[in-house]
């Protein structure tokens, strides 16, 4: 409770905190709430946001059949891979409905199904709105309009909605956005942890031991810092196959520590001269106590803020590598969505805006949450600001 009160002190920090809680929920429980569905669904390719299943009937049945309940004892036609059969099967009284499946043989599936409905083979057709749009309602598609113009939609709100539409393979973007952050966030946090840990340990050692070791560590940091990190990462990614996230996180972490290490070293150098550290020495408190209880707490907010910054920059590097196609694309992450958007050209398709904007916003909002939250960290760790 006290924690929340402290975060609330800084409004921007609070917004960031809420954002992070949201992302935490996504990467922990998100996968159980929204299943990851990798099946290609030909009938919902490039569906705009908000698309869903519809019920198509002959005009005379328009009033009669408006829900699955009305169709008990009747036959319903579904296309294979529409999500239709599953949807009908999920219905409580599914046994009472006769299901007729039309095979999606290349593009013949839809005409077959429409023909079946027109001829009375089935009483209603569960179909994806995108398809119905294209084959039945689209005024440009004269051929189908002539034959099936009399078919009508009796219920346009059947089944779950595609909140963010579907991608070029008909896969629900929403489930992908919900599931595509976990591995990215875990990798970024791991990389941030690695670089912060290295920076902290080496910076502290350099400052406390001093002498040759100090000079060597500073020289090493100065050396790594001049090699532009991202180009080097791309080159390394070409030389080593970055096929799992642990390797990726390690590589990013190993290249990111020098700047922070120098800052930690400067901090420790200044803190170790403080009177209270000297008093601790005089009181014969242990080395470990002095490092972890006297020095560390005073640079905790500094380390924490830099840890957050390290996560954001690891995110930058990681998604950049994926976007260029230099990092593993086994997992369908936000980065991979961007990669496909670029490599498959959907980036330039006006209909697929949601498809790319969804991961773009997910990434942007994650970064913004982190940075805003970092503004609260100072209040969290410094008792002088806490009670103010």
């Amino acid at each position, binding site marked *: 409770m006290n924690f929340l009160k402290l975060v609330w002190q800084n409004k*921007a920090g609070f917004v960031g905190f809420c954002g992070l809680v949201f992302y935490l929920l996504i990467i922990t429980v998100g996968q159980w709430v929204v299943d990851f569905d990798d099946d290609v669904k030909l009938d919902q390719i490039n569906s705009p946001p908000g698309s869903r299943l519809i019920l198509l009937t002959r005009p005379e049945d328009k009033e009669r059949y408006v829900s699955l309940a009305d169709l008990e004892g009747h036959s319903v036609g579904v296309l294979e891979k529409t999500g239709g059969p599953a949807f009908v099967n999920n219905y409580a009284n599914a046994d009472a409905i006769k299901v007729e499946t039309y095979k999606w043989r290349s593009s013949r599936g839809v005409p077959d199904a429409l023909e079946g409905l027109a001829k009375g083979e089935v009483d209603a057709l569960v179909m994806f709105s995108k398809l119905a749009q294209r084959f039945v309602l689209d005024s440009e598609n004269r051929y189908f309009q002539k034959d099936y113009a009399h078919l009508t939609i009796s219920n346009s709100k059947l089944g779950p909605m595609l909140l963010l539409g579907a991608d070029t393979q008909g896969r629900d973007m929403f489930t992908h956005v919900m599931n595509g952050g976990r591995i990215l966030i875990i990798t970024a946090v791991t990389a941030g942890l690695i670089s912060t840990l290295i920076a902290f340990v080496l910076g502290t050692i350099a400052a406390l031991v001093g002498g040759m070791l100090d000079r060597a560590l500073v020289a090493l940091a*100065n*050396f790594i810092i*001049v*090699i*532009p990190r*991202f*180009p*080097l990462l*791309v*080159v390394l990614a*070409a*030389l*080593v196959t970055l096929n799992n996230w642990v390797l990726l996180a390690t590589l990013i972490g190993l290249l990111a520590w020098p700047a922070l290490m120098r800052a930690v070293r400067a901090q420790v150098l200044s803190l170790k001269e403080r009177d209270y550290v000297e008093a601790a020495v005089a009181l014969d408190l242990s080395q470990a106590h002095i490092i972890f209880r006297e020095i560390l707490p005073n640079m905790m907010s500094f380390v924490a803020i830099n840890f957050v910054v390290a996560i*954001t920059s690891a*995110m*930058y590097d990681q*998604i*950049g590598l994926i*976007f*260029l196609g*230099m990092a593993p694309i086994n997992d369908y992450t936000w980065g991979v969505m*961007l990669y496909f958007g*670029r490599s498959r050209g959907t*980036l*330039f*398709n*006006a209909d697929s*805006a949601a498809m*790319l*904007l969804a991961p*773009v916003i997910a*990434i*942007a909002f994650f*970064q*913004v949450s*982190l*940075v*805003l939250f970092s*503004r609260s960290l100072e209040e969290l760790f410094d008792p002088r600001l806490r009670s103010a």
Partner: protein
Amino acid sequence: MQALPAKSQTQPFSFLEKIWRNYTLRTVIQSIFTVWAVITFIFFLVRLMPGNPIEIYVNYLINSENLTYEQAYNRAASQFQFDPSASWLEQYFGYIGQLLRGNLGESITSTGTKVIDQIMRFLPWTVFCVGLALLLSFVLGMLFGMIAAYYRNSWIDNLISIIAAILGAVPDYIWGLMIIIICGVQLKWFNVGDLRGTFDPSLQPGFTFAFIFSVIQHALLPILTYVMGTVGFWILAMRGSTTSTLGEDYVNIARARGLSQGRIITAYVGRNASLPLFTLLAINIGFVIGGSIIVEELFVYKGLGSFLFWSITQRDYTTMQGILLMITIAVVFSNMLADLLYSRLDPRVRISGDS
């Protein structure tokens, strides 16, 4: 008054000692040392990495051009610039010798083309595009940073700071994507396809209005992207610097003397607060050369970053090595420049060793 003869420690290398005390010379020597370290690092990086690129290339030649191992190896040797019969050490010194003569080797994929020529072809575009963006971002950052600091803790400051934090938090290529998707594809303010490349290929390069206009037009989106990605950093840096300057005694004294606000801001605060930022600017100039691989790839802007990426995907190791070296050296020397600049501006740094 008689001074006690200072304990003169006899130094065997008093000459070197003297050089070391000269801040400028010391900085230059350190930079050269770093460049040497980088050259060595890259040399061994390409040769010692798992899946030695030279071996891979040799195998590639054997398979694709039906050469014998011997022939393929010799070909690889000539492109990577090493004498296959030479030892590691000899190869290494040979490589450094070539570098000293400004020879970065030949491109593997486009045989007969010198890497340095290739770099020189792409470099100007990146320098133009990123350099202009850096300058713009720096100026805007100074302006807004100073406004924020001047109205610190008011709503203006909060607004500017939050916007700066958000701009800085989101990766530049994400801004680029947003620009393309929202402004280009959805709102159709411009045709993204037409803006690819560094200029309209139907035009002849030259000092014509159409050509220059086209160059600026093509660079506009990358520049906007860079500026959005970096301006936040400059705003926050300038805000911090100005805030601390505003607390200085000489500013209070200037106020007490009744100087006008405008004069205090420009002559006292602005000048002193922006000094550290110029050092930062000098450091950042080094990163201009490397450009941004992703942004250049995104807008299909043919600069050095995009060329580096191309050479990586083509496994053109000599080019890759050359570009990496080039951009690192740029960073080293801009760091050096920053150090020297800082020592000019702040004499305490220069003579700290003497006190």
